[in-house]
């Protein structure tokens, strides 16, 4: 067992024994060695289930919405992206800071589960796509901290080298080619809503896609409804996406969802200045306020 896992279990045990929180949300080993799904620990004697390894992909801040009316505190482990998700929920007043105990854990970059399955346990498994471009491996907010922060110059270097080449490749296509590309992707969308349900930015009390009586979206699965879903989902998380990449990881149809999210991030950076969601809790949201200097070519 690594020192980090030992420390994790120690902190969780302490929190539960002292009664500081009723539940600790972390990760545990799943069906296979390359799966580390969320774990909910209620008792000190269960802390040994907790792990920290290359596959702790799930963004645990998503679960905080389930504990809004929970009595007492909830403790969760946060990687960099989980902490940004936490900040986002806090900024939207979806959760209360003093009801959550955050245990920060710097992330070394997680590994690709599909590749792990394919290559086997002893192989050199590449990083998950979502982690390759990560610029915030260190938790930005925490009450406890485990391990050492990733060197800041390394993080800064990653920021410098921000890579939008995948978005640019699509931008150079003609409108017809773009349409064809995205139609092909979303034609196979099952509308299982896993991307929405795993997304920490998707925190509406009632999602537009569930307002079936209003009929924003039809029940049918076809190109037109799927496109409406794809565009609306992307626009609704614009300015809120913290780039944890969970939507794309969980998509059973391998739709490159982050490409849409990244396009919107790129546009926001261009129109309103560089912005990273969930970093500065007190700052204003680029699409959440009006500034006299905002571009308004469309007027």
């Amino acid at each position, binding site marked *: 067992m690594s020192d980090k896992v030992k420390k994790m279990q120690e902190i969780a045990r302490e929190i539960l024994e002292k009664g500081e929180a009723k539940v600790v949300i972390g990760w545990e080993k799943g*069906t296979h060695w390359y799966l580390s*799904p969320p774990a909910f620990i209620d008792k000190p004697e269960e802390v040994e289930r907790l792990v920290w390894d290359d596959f702790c992909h*799930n963004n645990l801040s998503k679960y905080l919405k389930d504990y809004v009316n929970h009595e007492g505190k909830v403790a969760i482990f946060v990687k960099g992206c989980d902490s940004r998700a936490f900040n986002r929920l806090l900024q939207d007043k979806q959760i209360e800071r003093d009801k959550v105990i955050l245990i920060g854990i710097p992330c070394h970059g997680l590994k690709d589960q599909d590749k792990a399955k394919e290559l086997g346990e002893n192989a050199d498994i590449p990083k998950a796509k979502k982690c390759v471009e990560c610029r915030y491996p260190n938790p930005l907010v925490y009450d406890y901290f485990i391990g050492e922060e990733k060197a800041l110059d390394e993080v800064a270097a990653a920021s410098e080298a921000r890579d939008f080449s995948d978005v640019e490749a699509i931008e150079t296509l003609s409108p017809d080619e773009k349409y064809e590309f995205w139609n092909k992707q979303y034609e196979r969308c099952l509308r299982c809503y*896993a991307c929405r349900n*795993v997304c920490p930015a998707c925190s509406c009390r009632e999602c537009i896609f*569930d307002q079936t009586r209003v009929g924003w979206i039809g*029940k049918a*699965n076809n190109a037109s409804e799927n496109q409406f879903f794809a565009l609306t989902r992307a626009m609704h998380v614009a300015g809120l996406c913290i780039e944890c990449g969970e939507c794309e990881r*969980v998509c059973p149809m391998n739709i490159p969802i982050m490409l849409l999210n990244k396009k919107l991030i790129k546009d926001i950076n261009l129109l309103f200045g560089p912005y990273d969601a969930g970093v500065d809790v007190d700052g204003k949201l680029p699409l959440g306020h009006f500034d006299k200097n905002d571009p308004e070519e469309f007027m």
Partner: protein
Amino acid sequence: MKTVLKTKLPELFEKLANNYTVFVPAKIEGISRFAPYQNGLELALEENVLMPPKDIFFPQTEKMYKFKAKDQYLEIEDLPPEEGQQVIFGVRSCDLKSIDCLDQVFLTKGFVDAFYQDKRDRSILIGLSCVKPMENCFCSSMGVDPQKGVGADIQAYDLGDKVGFEAITEKGRELLGKIETLLVEEAASVPAVEKFVLTADIEGVPEKLKNMFDHPIWDDICRKCLNCSVCAFVCPTCHCFDIASEVRGEDGTKIRCWDTCMFDEYTRMAGGHQPRPGKKERVRNRFMHKLRYFPERYDMLLCTGCGRCVAKCPVNLDITAVIRKIKEAE
């Protein structure tokens, strides 16, 4: 046994495609599923496909009829019937069993679903045996024989570089006759199935669940669930649907679409009441339906051990783990 080299399968499909729509396991845009055979299609015969054959009989969106409504006047128009026989090649035992489950729902107990029945009657099923279970397969634990499925018209056997055929029904014999010139009669033995990575001990679970509706186990099992519908939409047996209308002016189409007990709308009632308001109620329903209610009504499990939900669940809510927890519960 009549055999053919795997490399010659496209030729065989080509020949059948003259008279039938031939669904084969294929990889399209990176996703494996059953697709009508056409030249150049990338076959996916090494492993079972991600999307089960369910949608051939029970499409995700099915048009039922058209209507015209104006003032007091209503006119209903049937859609033109679909015609032609279809062959579905390469249905694994788990998926053959799932078609058996769907048959129970859509064809028995005095309820016959005309849309399902029509597609089913026009279909000839060719099963395909498995040699190496995939990492999430546990069909043998659910009473399914990976080497020989139920309800196939022809059972095909994976013989390594060849595929062997055994006609089961008259329809199957007739079909084999049509491709006889491509087949070779030779002695062949079906390879033994390799060891399963995943297993489940289902013995006594349906009975035990009868007294577990209010068991605290559900409070724990449900917590990580996101209430998405990956599990239901990749499941070969999940068959819930919702009927809706697409209306433009006076014209409308009735459609029925896959639905799932994971969704809020599924049980939301006209007055707004929600009898299954949260994760607990919905997750419980999913497993109760698969492991208790369906066995009670039809005397068979509504899980065939295909492992698709285990492979695709975003939070690894593994049904074999749920079965284990039910077994261990006090």
